[in-house]
Every structure is written in C-alpha cells, then in structure tokens.
C-alpha cells in the first residue's frame, strides 16, 4: 500500500512538474529587439547565457542588429519600432512620450519594487524633455570607481605584434615619433605586413590619446573654452601623422571600407603588425587567432605613450527603451529590472556560477576549462554569447574580462591606462538635445566626422591634405560649429557643478 501510494505520489509529482514546464514554456514571452550597434559580434539571442536568461525570466529576444547608424532613424521616421530598443545613441529622440513608455509608470503598473540609483536616473533624465525616465544607461562609472580595481574602462588601446617588436630589438615606444619610426621600419623590413589597421568603432582613439586630444567630443583649450575636437590643433596634428603613414603605405585604404566582421581579419591572419582597437579582451581573440597560425606569434596591448590623454566623457554606454507598441510592457519592465540585478549582471557577463565560473577569495571569477577552451577556438561568443548585458556594470564586466587574460601580460599597460582615464560626464551631458537649436548642426557635424577624417587621412599628398583639411574646417563652420561650441561652453559649468557635487 505504501509502495502504491509512493508510486502515485511520484507520478503526480512528475505530472505536476511536466505541466509546470509546459506552462513555463507556454508562458515564454518573445520580444523583438533592435540592437543599435553595428559592430555587435552576435546576431541572435542564442547560446548558453541567453538560454539561461530565458529560463530565469521567461523572456526571449528576437534580435535585429543595426546595419548602419541611420537605420534607427529610419525606423523612428516610419514608426516601425520593435518591442525593445537597445542603443547607445538617440537617447533624446527616444525619450519622448510619443515614442516610448516611461519607466516609472511601468514600474508602478507592474507593481515592481525597484529603487533606481540616483546617478543612473539623473544621467538618463538629461535626455528627457518631459522629465520622465525612459531608460537607464548602463555602464556609468565615475573615475574613482576604478581606483580599487585591476581592470580598466573600455577605451582605446593599441595592439601590436610583440614577436615582430622582439625581432626589431624592441625599439623604444614613448613618443609618436618612436611609433612612426617603428611603423616605417615594419614597412621596410616586412613588406608583406600591413603596419597599421583600425577597428571601426575605436578607429583613431588611441592616437587621439597619444596626441593629447583625449576621447571627448569637445576638448578643453588652454584658455578654458571647449572646442569641437575636429577643430583642435592636436587633431590636425594627429591626422597629418596618420596621413604620412598612409602615404608611406603603412595604412591600406581598404581598411576604411571594411565591415566590422572583416576589419580584424588581416591582423588575425598575421598579415598586420598593429591594430588600433580597445582594452579588455579585444587582444585576447587577436592573440589566440595569430597563435593558431604560428605559435611564435604574439599580440600585446602596448602601454600608452608618454602623456597620453585618456580623458573621456561618458554617461554610460547603452540603454533599453520600451516603445509604445511593445506587446507586453509590464513583462518588459520586469525583464529590464531583472537585468539590472546582481544575479543578472554576473550571469550575462560571467556565465552560470558554479558551472561556467566560481568566485575566488577576491570575489573575482575563475572560469571553467570549457569556457577557456571556447576562447581558444574562438567559439566563446557563439557558445556562451555574453552580449545581452542590458543592465550590466562596467566594472563588473571589466573585472570579468580581466579574469580571462593572462594578466601579467597586461598589468603594466592597464595600470598606466587606468591612471590616465578620467571621466568627465558633464561634457557629453552638455551636448544639444532634441529641441535645442544647435541639435541639427550637432548631428550633421557628428555624421560627417568619419567620412571627412577618412577623406583627409587618405590624401595623396601634403598639399591635398592641407586642402582637404581646410575644406573640412570650412564645412564645419558652414554647419555652425561655432554655435555648437557656444552652446557647450554655456552648458558645461552648470552640469560640471552638478556632477562635482557630493
């Protein structure tokens, strides 16, 4: 009788579990999601981490990656918006009650207990015309947040082939002249090797830091005023320096036409000496790739040059917006709240605790052998897919990525970069918003930057360079860059004081 009862209980429990699973599967919510980052390394919400997110939240994403920077504008113009938009730009256009739903109303409707940090709230409200919160920008950090870490913010960094440097006798790399000499030597001594290539997102940022320009859109001049960076003399100096490299055959023109999937290929194929990209684990995949070709190949992140200026202005990286046509806004806001939890941040960045990583004494992740192997064979993104960190923290991500690295190879460079990194959020906060008269010229000027600087950089001669530079400067004036700078210089003091306040 007892056996029968136990069997019946087991069967009942199994049926209950099966029904629960079926109900859970049936309750799965699928949101269409537009990711406004053309460089995104994954194109689908698949892999171990997304599956775990779905298991824990019941939410699955049908992802579309932006083809170019104008696609979101086209979508906004045609009002063909998905359920969610994850973007690092267009905050002001999306912070509009005619386009998106505000967080506070949804939090109340969903009955959530979510106390949003004040600095995250105020960063987002900078872009809001009606004072309502339409997103939370993730990855916001203050300069001091990095003081006690061994990692660095996501910023520009220059990779180079250490094996070639070794072969060249490790020439000094303290100044831009030292760097020029090295590139020219590589060009001469390794004719089959491309001396310098650029990753399309960070492009010339490493050189902007090396030339003291910094990484902000507006640069502070000796008189205390701010200029649009393309009008800064240091910018011209940098472009002239790069133009010389181009004219010397150190930079291939195809580099500027390459798609994000293609731009790192020559370096990964061992056909390039140096690659301008970013900190954290960018070099890891590059180094793994060239070692597949020849184990003696070795890619390193170079320490910054002397007096490099890593001043940046960041209010965070990206935010998630919930358009008005979202099919289930309460579930969407519940999902976003969960993405900002510590559990979600660790899952989305590090994987499953106890399976993909364990924590060491310093509460830093120690990854599993399987995960480390996936990095070696370049299947990490496809297998784990740690790219849906809608609510993640920059420090947590950076620490996690550092744990992937053979850190002794990076310690010196990262230490110098970290000490050079200064975040001045008030500069970007001062940029014109939708409704400001300077907004149109600001957008036009930004949209033209990449094309213009490429055009100047690939000048066939010094004369052509000068002519194109002057032409660019004239076009900036025509686009009312001075009005833009006036707006910035008026807005910065108030914003600076706000951020400086305790």
């Amino acid at each position, binding site marked *: 009788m007892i056996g029968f009862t136990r069997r019946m209980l087991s069967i009942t429990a199994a049926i209950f579990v099966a029904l629960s699973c079926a109900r859970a599967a049936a309750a799965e919510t699928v949101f269409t999601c537009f990711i406004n980052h053309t460089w995104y390394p994954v*194109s*689908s919400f*698949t892999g171990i981490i997304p599956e775990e997110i779905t298991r824990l939240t019941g939410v699955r994403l049908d992802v*579309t990656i932006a*083809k*170019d920077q104008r*696609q979101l504008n*086209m979508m906004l113009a045609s009002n063909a918006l998905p359920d969610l938009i994850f973007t690092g730009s267009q905050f002001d256009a999306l912070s509009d009650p005619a386009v998106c739903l505000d967080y506070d109303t949804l939090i109340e409707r969903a009955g959530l207990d979510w106390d949003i940090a004040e600095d995250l709230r105020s960063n987002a409200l900078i872009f809001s015309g009606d004072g309502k919160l339409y997103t939370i920008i993730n990855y916001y950090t203050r300069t001091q947040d990095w003081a006690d870490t061994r990692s660095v913010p996501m910023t520009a960094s220059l990779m180079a082939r250490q094996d070639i440097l070794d072969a060249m006798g490790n020439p000094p790399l303290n100044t831009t002249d030292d760097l020029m000499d090295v590139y020219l030597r590589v060009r001469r001594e390794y004719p089959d090797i491309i001396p310098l290539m650029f990753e399309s997102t960070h492009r010339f940022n490493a050189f902007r830091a090396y030339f003291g320009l910094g990484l902000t859109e507006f640069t502070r001049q000796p008189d205390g005023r701010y200029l649009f960076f393309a009008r800064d003399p240091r910018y011209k100096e940098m472009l002239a320096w790069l133009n010389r490299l181009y004219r010397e055959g150190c930079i*291939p*023109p*195809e*580099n*500027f*036409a*390459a*798609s994000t*999937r*293609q*731009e*790192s*290929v*020559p370096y*990964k*194929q061992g*056909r390039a000496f140096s690659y301008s990209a970013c900190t954290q684990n960018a070099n890891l995949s590059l180094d793994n*790739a060239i070692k597949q070709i020849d184990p003696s190949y070795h890619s390193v992140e170079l320490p910054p040059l002397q007096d490099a200026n890593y001043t940046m202005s960041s209010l965070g990286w990206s935010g998630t917006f919930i358009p008005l046509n979202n099919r289930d806004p309460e579930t969407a806001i519940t999902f976003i709240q969960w993405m900002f939890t510590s559990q979600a941040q660790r899952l989305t960045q590090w994987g499953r605790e106890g399976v993909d990583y364990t924590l060491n004494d310093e509460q830093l992740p120690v990854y599993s052998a399987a995960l480390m192997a996936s990095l070696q064979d*370049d*299947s990490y993104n*496809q297998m784990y897919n740690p790219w849906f960190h809608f609510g993640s923290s920059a420090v947590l991500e950076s620490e996690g990525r550092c744990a992937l690295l053979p850190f002794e190879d990076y310690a010196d460079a990262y230490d110098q970069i970290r000490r050079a990194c200064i975040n001045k959020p008030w500069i970007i906060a001062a940029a014109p918003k939708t409704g400001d008269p300077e907004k149109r010229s600001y957008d036009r000027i930004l949209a033209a930057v990449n*094309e213009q600087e*490429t*055009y100047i950089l*690939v*000048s*066939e001669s010094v004369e052509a360079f000068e002519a194109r530079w002057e032409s660019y400067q004239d076009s900036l004036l025509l686009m009312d860059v001075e009005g833009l700078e006036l707006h910035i210089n008026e807005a910065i003091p108030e914003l600076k004081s706000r951020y400086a306040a305790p």
Partner: protein
Amino acid sequence: MRTRTPRPPILKMTTQFMLLYGFLALLPALVFIGSYSAQVSNRQRQEIWYQEKLFLSQTAASLNQAIVSMGAVADTLTMNSALMDMLEGVYPTASDELMAYIRVIQPALTQSQAANPGLRGMYIYRFNETFLSDSDLLFATPMVSIFPYDPAWLLCSGEPCGMIVTPADPVRRLYGETLDTALYVSFTRVFDRSFSQQVGLIETQLDMDRALTELGIPQDRGALELRFEGRWYPIRITARGAHLDDPLPDSEAATIEKDRTLIIEPVGLTRMELAYAFDPSLGQSAVGATVSMALLLLLPTLLAYWFVYRLALRLSRFGQHIQQTDASSPTAYEKKQPDDELGDVVSAYNTLVLFHKELLDQVRSAERMKNAATYYAMSSQVNPHFMFNTLENIRMRIEVERYDDASRMLQTLARFLRYNISLRQDSSLEEELCHIERYLVIYQYRMHSRIEYSVNRPDDAPLNKVRCPFCMLQPLLENCLRHGIRDEKPLIITVSIEPSDDDWLIVIADNGSGMRPDEIESMNESLQAAAPTEQAAQAQVGLSNVNARIKYFYGSGYGLRLESNGDGGLTVRVLIGWKAADAV
C-alpha cells in the same frame, strides 16, 4: 464451487435468421459501405494531395520570390553609377575610389541589406581584365585573400548561378568564420556599360532559415525537404521558426526517393525543388470506415439476434415440453408466457391439454371399470381337472383309510380355495408365495412326492408390503407342473425373490422338458409386444394372462420373460414393481 452456466442451445431458427440477415442485409450493407468509404477515402486523399500541392506550390513561389528579390538587389546595384565606375576603373586615385565607396556604394549596400532582412551578406568582386586577384577585390571585401568558391563560379555562364552553403560546410571567407544558418549563394555577372566584357561579380547570400521562416510553414506540417542538385536538405520546423538542415547522407537520400510518396515543386528558375513527403494513409481509411460501420451495424444485429433467439428459445422449450409429454397423459406447459402470439399458442395448447386430459380420464375410468370385470374373471380361473383330481385323490385316501393324509389335503385345499375364490383385486407378494406353496403341497400329495420345490425369500424383505396382482404366480406354477413332469425324474421347482431399489424379480425355474430356443424367443417377443388389451388378458394361455395382468398392474415396463435353463428346464423371470400402477 461455481456452477457453470449451461451454454445456450444453438437454435436452428436463430442460425437461419442470422444467416439470412447476414447474407441479405448485413453483407450487402458492408459491401456498399466499404465501396462508398473507399470512394470517399480516395476523394479525401485527392483533396489532401491537392491541398498539399497547392501549399507546396505557394511555398515554392514565396521562396522563389525571396530568391528573386536577391537577384533584384544585385540588378539594382548594377545600375549604381559609382559602382560601375569603380568596377570599370574610372577613378584616378585610391582615395577617390574609397570616398566613392564610402559615400555612395556602401550606403547602397547597407540600404539593400536593411531593406532585405533575408539578405545575409553581399559581396562584390571586381575583375581586372579577365581574372580576379587580391587587389582587385572591391572594398566590400578588402581583405579576402582568395575567392572562397570554385573559380568556375566567377564566369558562371549557365543561369541560374547559385549554390547552397550549410553550417556543416561553411564558406570560410574570414578567419574562424562559422555559419549558424544555411545560405543560398547566388551570383550575378556584371558587365561594363558597353557589354563588351565582364567587369565584376555580385554575390548575394540569402539566409535560408529566415526565408523559410517567413514562409510561415505550420509547425505540424509533415516532412518538408529541399532538393538541390540531387542532395536532400531536410527543413525542420520548430516553434522558433524554420531551419534548413545539413544535407542528408546519400544512403538516407536514396531512402527518401525510394520509400516515400513525394510531391515535388520546382522553385522558380532556381535548381531548387521543394518536396513534401505525402502520407498516402492520410484521410479517412476505407477499412476503418467499414469497420466502424460494421461495428455500428453489429449493435442492431445483436439486438435482432437476441430478439429472435428469445423467441426461438421459447418455441424450442415449448416443443421440447410437447416432445417429452407422454401422449397418454399430456401435461400443461406451465412456464409463464408474455402476452404475445406465442403466449396465445401456449394458452390454446394448455386449454387443449386440459380438455384432452378430462377426456382421457373419462375413457380410463370406463376402461378401468371394464378391466375390473375382466380381471376378476381371469384371476378366478382354477383348472377344473385340478379340482377333480385332488378330490379323487382325497377320496382314494379315505377309502384306504388314510384319514390323516386326506384330512391334511382337505385342509390345504380348503385354504387354497378360500384364497382363490376371495376375488380380490390385488394381494401381497407374501400371500402369493403362501398360495403357491399350498398349491405345490397339494400337487406333492397327488404325485406321491415326484415333485420337489423350494421357495426362497430374502431375509427381512417386507414381502407382505409388496402389492401385486391377485393370483399372479399360481398360473406360472401350473404351467411348470403341466409341462415339466416327464419320465420318472422328479420335477424340481425353485422360486426365488430378488429385490432391488425399485423393482422385484421373481424367478421360477424348473428342470422340466423346457422349450426350444426359437419357441422361447417367439414367446418373449409375444410377451414384450403384448399390449394390456382386453383380448390378451382374456387369453386362456396362463403366461399371457399373467403377463397382461402385471402390465395392467404396474405398467408396460413390467412383465414376464422366459429363459432356458442349462439342464433343459425353463426359467420364468417375473419383474414387478413396488406398488401398483395407476392403471389398476
């Protein structure tokens, strides 16, 4: 212990009815239903086949439309002046070419991709004179070191130019590139403006998973497959969309073509074909329908069978009752009958039986009265020679002054006669035995002891309670004495009584001259066939007389039987019952 319910009898009428019903009604109905179901089933299968064919042709048309739109993208690009300038090598410097690419061509490529979500990738190859080399690749693929396909595709002359690439065998155009979806890669040749030479090639990649998903193929759809250049690619439909699997091994592909009924639809001008494995068993099964209808018909059949069986069973039992009823004493059929036609028949029968019984009783009563007179006449018969001889014998003993013997003979004769003239209807077996003992004693006196006899009674047998016809045994002894005494040999007569549960057997054996076997057989036949008629009873032959009276008394199953003794004598076996039959 459980008692088994006796199996119901198989009734002829029911069987006949069922055979009649089966052949005249059920079988034709089943044949008709089977034929009709087969027609309906065939029609259903045809409809399903046409539906599947329609679905497949619509699906193929939609897929073709997606592929055609890829070609349209390529055709549109060939009308881009900047692209044609670049392919024709019009730009004087690399920077001019680059800026043309960045400002005009790249946005056109991006726009094409944004407008065509199924367009997974697009590559443009520039020809330098007649062949492709590293430096001639367009900026869209600046770092590609080799053309990743068979070089024959560069000059594909036959239309359409296309191939399927699957994750199992991806195009490794870039380092470590993997595929998460199958692609349909098609090539469009680009000629210069004067159409004098080929200046480039446009490769468009259609995301097959996306294209198939947008076809909206239902998840419950059967096995759908895509055939391309003899290879079979299964299309897997899940809740998340469609997926084109890697091609099947040749062995499995052969199985598909051999074992399945396929509906094949070409996809436009491509070399693709969509194939749907049509299940011929779809639709209503004729066998199933026939079986279902047969089961439906079985219920009324069983009801009809039950009804007929019940009727036939009643008739059968009634018939059995009539068969088992003794014609001489019919009894009423007492089983309660429903109020129907058969019940009326039974009721009429019972009335008839009642009337017949009353009539029979009247006839019997009259016969009994008549038999009683005959009976008395038969039982009182005493041979007058016996009387005269016995009296003469007594007179002679008196003359020779043997008064004691004469006195005992006279006393015995007196007792004998007293019993004989008592004229009773019946007597007891004990009295009958005493009577024949007196008869034999008288004979012994007369015959000077030339006769020996013995009467053997079983111990404790209640012979005085066994009723029997009056004067039943005396004629049999008389018969022995008349025909048994011969020569000087003494006649030995043995009378013995053998009781049994229901009957008594009286055996009278002598050692006299006996009878021939044929005579015995003839006599037995005569005794067996003899009806207890008046004529037989009045027969003066002693054996027949006794036999008739016994049958009257006990019934037709009782009477005499003769047997030959081994020593030449005769044995008469008299079977009587315990009590008198109703006939007396």
